[in-house]
């Protein structure tokens, strides 16, 4: 089934913090890998969203993309804009009603998944920050 029009009830959510280490330069080749989360390898992920961190706007002010690999090492999402996964903004007006992006994964290898930060202006960090949280919803 490739579509649904019904509200779905999720049994569990898994929230993984996205840590950005100290770095002097970000550009289109910078990849930030997710931390390992073995418990997600056999979880049927039905929805994903991204929540921007409260104390860092590095993901919000730059163009960030997610590449996600499933437990068969198949690249399922290639350069998916994180902004499209997010429904909250640190500042500004939210123009779309709340919606959760729906997916169909039988398991995810998080340590093979990464964010790509694309920015025209190189940025630097002097201390590690939590850029946000990526939330996985299980049916």
């Amino acid at each position: 089934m490739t579509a649904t029009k019904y509200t779905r009830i999720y049994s569990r959510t898994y929230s993984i913090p996205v840590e950005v280490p100290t770095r002097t330069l970000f550009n289109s080749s910078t990849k930030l890998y997710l931390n390992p989360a073995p418990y997600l390898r056999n979880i049927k992920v039905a929805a994903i969203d991204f929540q921007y961190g409260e104390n860092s706007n590095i993901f919000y002010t730059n163009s960030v993309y997610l590449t996600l690999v499933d437990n068969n090492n198949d690249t399922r999402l290639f350069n998916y804009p994180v902004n499209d996964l997010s429904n909250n903004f640190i500042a500004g007006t939210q123009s779309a009603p709340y919606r959760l992006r729906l997916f169909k994964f039988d398991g995810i290898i998080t340590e093979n998944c990464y964010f790509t930060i694309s920015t025209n202006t190189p940025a630097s960090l002097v201390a590690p920050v939590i850029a946000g949280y990526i939330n996985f919803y299980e049916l």
Partner: protein
Amino acid sequence: MIQPIIEKSYLVEVNLGTPAAQKQINFQFIPQLEGSTIYGIQTFSATDVAAAPSGSAVVSTTGLASCVITFCVGDNQDIYLMPCSDLRSANNSGFQRMFNNKKLNLTKSFITILSTTGITANDVVLVQFLYR
């Protein structure tokens, strides 16, 4: 409205080059999409993401509105001159446009610039395909 369940997605960058009215820019060959069944298509403007994964500047919302897209299935132009703005989720209350399981001939598909308003040289149109 029906929401697609995303099985796979692939973001394609289409560089508009030097903008000119009636210019057509074809899609490049994407091996991952060859022979795949596409059921959702989405575009983004600079308001959504300012820079493409390659680092190129993304076309503005005004520039996106100056473009239309034609998708071919085989030799048939099944989706003909569809406004790129109509595929932008933010213009559709956050929803992604769904299509009827198309096996697209991407290299025959193209974007047409209707006017150069809002388009800067080498702006990129981002087109995301939902497929399986």
